[in-house]
């Protein structure tokens, strides 16, 4: 018989629920911290940079006044929001960065929220967490607390940067609070959507649709005086209505705060549901739809069609609006020729003719189309890590071939998106009577395709070489190049710095003829990246 030497020790019982709740908070922080730091830093850096360069951009009060007149034009207002006090560095910063940052913080907040809530649930990891003493409702509350704080931090960073730049504290506070509340509103929207829809894709898609609709409402409200009240219905409109550095109204912020609180409460209330269930559960069965299942490329096309339709709807709606307001822009600038010069100084060169106007806006098209391409390759990698590719890879084909099919189909999707943008712009221009032909419009849209394909190339390169860093690497040509160009222009960096951006080599089609050499170089770089990425991908071990 074995002698027992040690006294049996009772396990140390601590406050289990509280400890697991803290663990969940810590987990959520880990899941969001890296991107949260980046978004916060971007909000601070952009605000500080634009505020610091205000003097060199605006020069004197007379120029500010002229710019105010330009910015008051309905078309400009539709695109960039209603300007408040452009003579003030803070007011100018709000006008230049406000909507961009609001969309950035809002979009990031909702994406990260659906990822850590419904995404983790889809993956089955939430089941493990909830096997502990923590109730499901508390899990959601803990996650929301972290996500709302992250969104608030981004807004606070903008306030801090503007305060550090020496702008009016009240304006900085109003602007930062508006950004923070916008982020929090969309985090809550994402959380609510994650309770309603039983899959991450549906939750993300519907929350993005809310954001896009909010942005559209803001554009309509800013563009048409008679419909100005519509801005009370959207976070982007409400932040505009606060008029930072001007009247600094707090009432719109209160409305936004109340909506955010209501949305958060609704999400928490809707959280009373079955884990892995939702409030909109699809029918339990359906007859098979066998189209596009007969080969790997066909299946890649099948998986792309629904996301492509979403992206096409968003891009099409935006560029239809661009076309619709074209005539208003052209008329205004024709009546006030001296504004063309001012506009170019303020960074909107060549807006005096419809071709220049269209070219400026088509350059932006490279961002969503490149984003679409990167998102498809990201989804392909998610299929790999999720183990869904394994069965296809066990079939008689090389992995390189399967990935190649995915890339070709994605490139096809990118072409469709630029054509949709071109057609939508032409349709809007025709409706508003602007002199922009379908051919010019399509040429302008197709012109940005090489930049979007650079993003695709970067994503494929990442797929082969460093798939875990795909989000960062694929953002380099598009978002990175765009920010580089804007920043280099703002701080008067040496010429070659801006030349690193693909956007610097984009001809202003249809105002100019395309830079075929630059386009060829970009396509060559993109193809090389695809080739290297595919080669490495064929050799590396399959994840999962």
């Amino acid at each position, binding site marked *: 018989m074995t002698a027992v030497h040690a006294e049996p020790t009772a396990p140390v019982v601590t406050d289990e629920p509280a400890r697991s709740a803290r663990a969940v908070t810590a987990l959520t922080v880990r899941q969001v911290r890296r991107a949260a730091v980046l978004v916060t830093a971007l909000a601070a850096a952009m605000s500080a940079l634009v505020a610091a360069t205000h003097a060199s951009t605006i020069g004197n009060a007379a120029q500010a006044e002229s710019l105010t007149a330009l910015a008051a034009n309905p078309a400009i207002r539709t695109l960039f929001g209603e300007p408040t006090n452009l003579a003030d560095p803070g007011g100018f910063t709000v006008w230049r960065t406000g909507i961009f940052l609001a969309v950035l913080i809002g979009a990031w907040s909702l994406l990260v929220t659906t990822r850590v809530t419904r995404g983790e649930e889809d993956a089955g990891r939430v089941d493990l967490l909830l096997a502990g003493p923590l109730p499901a409702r508390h899990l959601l509350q803990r996650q929301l607390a972290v996500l709302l704080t992250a969104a608030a931090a981004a807004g606070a960073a903008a306030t801090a940067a503007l305060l550090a730049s020496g702008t009016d504290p009240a304006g900085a506070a109003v602007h930062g609070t508006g950004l923070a509340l916008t982020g929090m509103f969309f985090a809550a929207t994402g959380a609510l959507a994650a309770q309603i829809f039983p899959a991450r894709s549906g939750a993300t898609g519907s929350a993005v649709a809310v954001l896009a609709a909010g942005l559209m409402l803001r554009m309509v409200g800013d563009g048409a005086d008679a419909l100005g009240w519509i801005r009370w219905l959207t976070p982007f409109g409400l932040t505009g209505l606060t008029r930072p550095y001007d009247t600094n109204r707090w009432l719109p912020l209160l409305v936004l705060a109340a909506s955010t609180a209501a949305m958060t409460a609704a999400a928490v209330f809707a959280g009373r549901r079955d884990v892995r269930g939702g409030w909109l559960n699809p029918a339990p069965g359906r007859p098979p739809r066998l189209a596009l*299942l007969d080969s790997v490329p066909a299946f890649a096309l099948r998986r792309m069609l629904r996301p492509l339709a979403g992206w096409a709807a968003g891009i099409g709606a935006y560029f239809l609006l661009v076309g619709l307001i074209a005539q208003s822009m052209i008329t205004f600038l024709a009546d006030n020729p001296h504004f063309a010069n001012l506009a170019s100084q303020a960074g909107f060169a060549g807006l005096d003719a419809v071709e220049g106007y269209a070219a400026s806006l088509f350059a932006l098209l490279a961002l969503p189309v490149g984003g679409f391409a990167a998102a498809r390759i990201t989804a392909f990698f998610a299929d790999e890590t999720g183990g869904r590719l394994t069965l296809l890879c066990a079939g008689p*084909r090389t992995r390189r071939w399967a990935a190649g099919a995915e890339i070709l189909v994605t490139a096809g999707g990118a072409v469709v998106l630029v054509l949709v943008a071109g057609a939508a712009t032409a349709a809007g221009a025709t409706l508003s009577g602007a002199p922009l032909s379908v051919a010019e419009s399509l040429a302008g849209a197709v012109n940005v395709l090489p930049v979007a394909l650079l993003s695709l190339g970067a994503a494929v390169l990442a797929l082969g070489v460093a798939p875990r860093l795909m989000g960062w690497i694929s953002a380099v040509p598009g978002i990175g190049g765009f920010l580089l160009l804007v920043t280099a222009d703002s701080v008067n960096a040496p010429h070659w710095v801006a030349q690193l951006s693909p956007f610097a080599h984009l001809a202003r089609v249809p105002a100019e003829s395309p830079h075929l050499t630059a386009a060829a170089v970009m396509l060559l770089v993109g193809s090389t990246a695809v080739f290297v990425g595919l080669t490495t991908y064929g050799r590396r071990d399959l994840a999962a």
Partner: protein
Amino acid sequence: MRTAKLSKHYGPVRALDQLDLEVAAGEVFGFLGPNGAGKSTTIRLLLGLAQPTAGTAHLFDVPAADVASAHRHLAYVPADVALWPQLTGAEILELLARTGPGTDRDYQAELVDRFALDVNKPARTYSTGNRQKVALIAAFATRARLLILDEPTSGLDPLMEREFRTAVREARDRGQSVFLSSHQLAEVEAVCDRVAILRAGRLAEVATVSDLRRLHRTEIEVSFTGELPDLETMPGVDTVETVAPGHIRFSLAGPPGPALWALVSADIATLSVREPSLEEIFLAYYGEAIR
């Protein structure tokens, strides 16, 4: 299928070390080992999903890395079946049939019936067992020469487990080879011709199930009325235990004759001889490490 000195190292970890294995055509081959022994790593190397650090693997005399050729005659069921959540079972079976190595659609329909799979549900709603059924039906319905099954029945209920064994036998009757990695020792015992046992990335044994038994000790339990003979000194006898007065248990390796002769003098009342189950053999291989 054959491998020669097949090795896979992840940094300093030797997931698989110098594996030499050969599976003949038409054979059902069991691949045993505890978690982390390197079973799934071996299968990933065989499928070309990962590159070996050293050594070679060939399927039908084609290097495993040449997947376009090798996979023309192969079907696979992963240990953890992941499916596209929005596709229904029928759609996934269609996809795998159209992109796979050729499928017998009639047999596929029969298997759907036998495995009682509701193919109209989206994969999102499938349990682990149902996802495994989809992959199993897709694999068994192919006319591939080799079926590689990685723990295919871990989520199946006993009824479905029986269907699985039937399907394996049908595959063998058609001349298909089956490479079955499994934890279900009873299942391996029931369907496999030969078994390989893997331990910490190295091959511990390859033998038929009956040979494995012979290599191991038989357990004998005897009750008697007379005097207990001195068994301890007899060759092959080990661990004599007294269960109750006049009732002993001992293990025996080698021929049982001498021990039985000795016991005859003790007036045997009851005698039971039990061959070790594969589970006991398995535990004998790995148990020491745990104890």
